[in-house]
């Protein structure tokens, strides 16, 4: 069974600080996605990484896919209250049409 472990489960920091959240697995994925979900809404896709070692930047968010394509990290620089939400990572394989989700990191940025 493929599993994605996300850490930390909860993170509460002050506005302006930097943070990193992690997504780890013992399985190899062909691609990995990061989503952000706000209360009462569906998750919204932030980024898809597909190449081992790939780094993508989305304004203050930096996403990295591990060289072995088993793990990923999300780094936020100078966090803002608008970054608050549940961050989910999800891994896909080319074998089937399903994506495996982690349980998420709940991030709260204090103003």
């Amino acid at each position, binding site marked *: 069974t493929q599993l994605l472990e996300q850490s930390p489960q909860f993170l509460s920091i002050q506005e302006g600080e930097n943070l990193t959240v992690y997504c780890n697995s013992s399985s190899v994925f*062909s*691609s990995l*996605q990061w*989503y952000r979900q706000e209360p*009462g*809404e*569906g*998750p*919204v*896709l932030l980024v*898809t990484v*597909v190449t081992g070692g790939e780094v993508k930047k989305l304004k203050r968010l930096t996403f990295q896919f591990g060289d072995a394509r088993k793990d990923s990290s999300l780094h936020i620089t100078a966090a803002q209250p608008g970054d608050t939400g*549940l961050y*989910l990572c*999800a891994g*896909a394989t*080319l074998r089937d*049409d*399903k*994506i495996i*989700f*982690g*349980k*998420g990191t*709940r991030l709260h940025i204090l103003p």
Partner: protein
Amino acid sequence: SQTIHQWPATLVQPVGSPLSLECTVEGTSNPNLYWYRQAAGRGLQLLFYSVGIGQISSEVPQNLSASRPQDRQFILSSKKLLLSDSGFYLCAWSGIYALGHYGYTFGSGTRLTVV
């Protein structure tokens, strides 16, 4: 552009009553469609997925069922709801992004409370 519609947004149903949640997609053909359930504030559990009309794969044994009567319509149903069916239900479709890799577009979800 592609959009996904899911309704209703909120539903309160008594135990033993039937359920029908509907999801439709616009702006794409032959999408892969999915129903997920999310426990309070946490991870997503895949319930059903469909790669075409009439093709349904079930991931978790339960008293729920799904149907795909049209290419861009996906319905989640139950004949008799249980208290444990309460949760946040999400419909999604998957698109092919660069190099054939997937990402989901989710609907806005249905908060179901069984009382």
